[in-house]
């Protein structure tokens, strides 16, 4: 591991170029579209889990309602492209902005709440959004959902095969990683992490905690909205039952398994959960038992997730204390 890190530090450019080349070639090397579709699903959930991770992992707020923002993005895309023929490429940022605005609305009353109370509010908000989608028939198709959502069109090429769709998710995923990594290193990002580690201390140092928590929610919701908008034409059909709290918890499981507060964690989490879902399909409902066991084991053995940093509050008091005892210095 150390060697790999050293190699990476020395040849950063080469590593990036290789990764870039590999990701470009993948859809043409893998002939089985079935597998490409799974890869698309992994990339989609990786971004969605990443957006949740920005909230849960970086600012330490516990959002359980990511499915709601995802739902807003998906329905915005489906309704606008299907009913008004708006181009997918215009809808994509629109869906993000709309989700971010709703994120703001949700975050406002929750500023004074934290912990379990905040979680319950976000859970409720997610269900409200889903029920609106289920009831507002003229726009969302009600319980029947929206079918035959137009595929994105790029210079006359209809992007309906996973081969092409791969690039949509890839670009969104890379953009998300890049922008988020920048944001996290900015003043705002550091403020989020300060709030996570100790809200009172952050406030005493002049961090406007309320505003930072709002922007954090909006940022997470924005990306969930975007990925929702990309998801709608990918499945071609959406209905409210796809956005239940189960979806929210599923995404949360990805973040928890992968590691909160790391950029890489949600990607690993998404890959593990998606691959397990597909390979364990033959076990039928028993596979949910397996998830549950994995999550329990995870909380037990590695509360910070597979890739989580052990010096964060997310790792739980035990590890933190141990680090302190050892004179842990990493900040």
């Amino acid at each position, binding site marked *: 591991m150390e060697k790999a890190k050293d190699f990476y530090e020395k040849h950063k450019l080469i590593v990036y170029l290789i990764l870039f080349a590999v990701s470009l070639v993948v859809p043409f090397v893998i002939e089985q579209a*079935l597998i490409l579709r799974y890869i698309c699903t992994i990339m989609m959930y990786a971004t969605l889990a990443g957006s949740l991770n920005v909230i849960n992992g970086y600012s330490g707020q516990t959002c359980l309602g990511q499915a709601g923002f995802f739902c807003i993005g998906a329905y915005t895309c489906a309704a606008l492209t299907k009913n008004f023929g708006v181009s997918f490429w215009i809808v994509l940022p629109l869906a993000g902005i709309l989700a971010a605005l709703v994120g703001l609305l949700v975050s406002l009353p929750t500023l004074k709440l934290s912990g379990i109370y905040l979680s319950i509010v976000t859970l409720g908000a997610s269900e409200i959004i889903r029920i609106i989608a289920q009831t507002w028939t003229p726009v969302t198709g009600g319980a029947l959902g929206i079918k035959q959502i137009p595929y994105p069109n790029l210079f006359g090429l209809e992007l309906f095969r996973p081969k092409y769709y791969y690039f949509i998710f890839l670009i969104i995923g890379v953009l998300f990683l890049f922008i988020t990594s920048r944001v996290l290193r900015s003043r705002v990002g550091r403020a989020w992490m300060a709030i996570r580690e100790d809200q009172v201390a952050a406030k005493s140092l002049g961090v406007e905690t309320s505003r930072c928590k709002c922007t954090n929610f909006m940022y997470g919701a924005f990306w969930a909205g975007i990925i929702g908008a990309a998801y709608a034409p990918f499945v*071609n059909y959406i209905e409210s039952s796809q956005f239940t709290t189960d979806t929210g918890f599923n995404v949360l499981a990805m973040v928890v398994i992968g590691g909160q507060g790391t950029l890489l964690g949600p990607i690993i989490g998404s890959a593990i959960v998606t691959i397990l879902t597909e390979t364990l399909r033959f076990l039928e409902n028993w596979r949910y038992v397996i998830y549950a066991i994995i999550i329990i084991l995870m909380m037990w053995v590695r509360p910070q997730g597979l890739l989580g940093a052990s010096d964060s509050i997310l790792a739980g008091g035990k590890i933190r204390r141990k680090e302190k005892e050892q004179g842990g210095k990493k900040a």
Partner: protein
Amino acid sequence: MKKKRMLAVAALSMTAVLMTACSGGSGSSTGGGSGEASTIKLGGLAPLTGNYAEYGKGFQIGWQMAIDEINAAGGVNGHKLEIEVKDTQGDAVVSSNMATNFAEDESVMAILGDFTSGACKANAEIVDRYGIVQLSPTASAPDYANMSKYCFSIMGRQDGEAPYLARYILDKYLGAKKIAVIRVDSDWGLSCYENFLPTAEELGMEVTVEKYASGEKDFSSLITKMRSVNPDVLVVMDQGDSVAAIFNQADAAGWDIQHVALGPGTSEQLIGQLTTPDNLIVTSPFFFDENDETLTKWSSTFQEQSGFAPTIHPACAYDTVYLIKNAIERIGDGEITRDAIQQALDQSENTGITGALNFTEDGDIVRNYMICGVENGKWVVLEGFDYANE
């Protein structure tokens, strides 16, 4: 620096993931080459888990029975058949994911399934794009099969069954005037109700309706509301566990009313679930007649494999395999492609164990119905096909 490193590791692991995913797949390439005998692969979509699991399991067994029979008899034009069944959980989105997977897998020549009209309609666009047949044993929404030339169904349509329910069960058989309808809020449920209502109104019935989201478990408030209307008959339009749940909760509330169901057919499992099965009347296009030797034999083979008695649904599933077989026979020495199967299927005329199966222009079939009820825990025909002509 640390973040940058993380970013790179992130990208690296994404690649690693791709590799893992690659090794996870196992493809079977079995394209139907012309002339040379090979295996023709079919894709099966069925709700093996969830609310409609009884029907999904029935599909799986029905398909496999037909395939085993055909292969044992030497296959079709020397080709063996095989089917890969995927669980769609009774969920349209899972179904369309699976449909895409089959459509993208070039070795799959045709898709059989799915169970619900909603799932089939969600898949219609996909099968149309990829040019692969989706032959549903049970989709009955009238606006399904005409969505694409690749969409077929052999269940008969709700614009036949729902008016039959109004005219012959409610009006002629029961003489009911005040009807309470509780229906599932889905494509299928909506289409049932929309086809039911005009006939009911024409016959001067007073209809009160309530709908519920698929997956709801507590119907007590709906039942209380319906009871206050004081109807003659309680009609439930749904399949699966909810049908029994509604009638049982009505019984539990001490409401003595005639039960009628549109959708479940002569489901054996339903009898087991109901507290007062003898109070139930359903429409059915098909009945396992004990005097019919072929049917009895089929039914007992099915029961041996599944552990429960069949409804029309697995019988239709069984028939769909034979429809594909006949289509392949019609292609003869020509190359077996997805399009060739579509064309041959479109023109085919067949008789299956569930009766005559001749496609209309839309790609579905017209069925006749009878009235079935329960006596001493067993399904019986109350009025046969002739009742509609009397």
